[in-house]
């Protein structure tokens, strides 16, 4: 249920809130989120076994043993919106990043409580928060890099 809810949230928020006229500009951000999520899953689930997924019911989840729909629809849509609404001032940016990373961490903890994610000993919600902060920082770094030519 949680996975389906996130998938629907991703699709609906993209359809309703995303500025589609900026798709060509923000498309690498979508791509980056898919790449970061899949790479993270590969390293943390398959190699380091830091967390594992249980009770996955969405298609492809049985094949890849990760919530594929969440990584393909929810996080990329959120990344798109994150860049779209990125504030202009530094304090606002810091507050913005912390708010998003906190929301992602809370969402993950709901999945942990719901038994969808099983985190191994040593992993802590604060580490998840740092992981999401890193993801959001890299998302903006890559966006600036991609947009560099347009600003010159």
């Amino acid at each position: 249920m949680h996975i389906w809810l996130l998938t629907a949230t991703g699709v609906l928020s993209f359809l309703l809130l995303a500025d589609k006229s900026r798709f060509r500009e923000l498309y690498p951000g979508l791509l980056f989120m898919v790449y970061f999520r899949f790479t993270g899953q590969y390293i943390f689930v398959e190699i380091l076994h830091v967390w594992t997924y249980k009770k996955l019911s969405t298609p492809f989840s049985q094949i890849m043993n990760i919530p594929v729909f969440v990584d393909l629809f929810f996080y990329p849509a959120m990344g798109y919106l994150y860049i779209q609404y990125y504030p202009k001032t530094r304090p606002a940016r810091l507050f913005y990043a912390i708010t998003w990373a906190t929301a992602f961490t809370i969402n993950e903890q709901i999945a942990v409580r719901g038994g969808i994610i099983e985190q191994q000993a040593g992993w802590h919600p604060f580490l998840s928060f740092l992981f999401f902060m890193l993801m959001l920082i890299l998302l903006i770094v890559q966006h600036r890099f991609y947009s560099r030519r347009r600003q010159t």
Partner: protein
Amino acid sequence: MSYILLFFLSWAVFYLFIDFERMPELYPSGLLSSTLGIWTDLIMIRFKLWDYNGAPLDALSIPLVLDFSIYPVVAMLYVQYFPHRKPILRKTVYILFWVLPAIFLEWIYLMRGEMQHHKWWSLWLSFISDWIIYAILIGAYMIVRNHLKQNQAR
């Protein structure tokens, strides 16, 4: 060891041949290539249509090495030199020019025992997959190219 060599060789080729001025435009292709790579890696853990071995790296780390080196480098160079304004035949020959070395490299790895195909997978299917991947790469690149063109026109 050959995978580590391939890693460094890929980035050396990148350094020598990439047009750094065009990097922001080429980078999404590298990202897409790595994404497709990591996606197939996640699938192959379950399906085992192919796998790798090559000390000192363990079997699960080798795909990551490829995803961080040869996949993005080849994708960016492929897109950089793509003959956009040439006839379709020239474009097809160009793609073939990139597919054949990829297949040859895979064949070498198979011969050396550092890669294995399993079940129904074969070099022919790799050949077909490469065509599809190269077509996807150029299709996705058009999104970026058109965007940059529009911005330059403003």
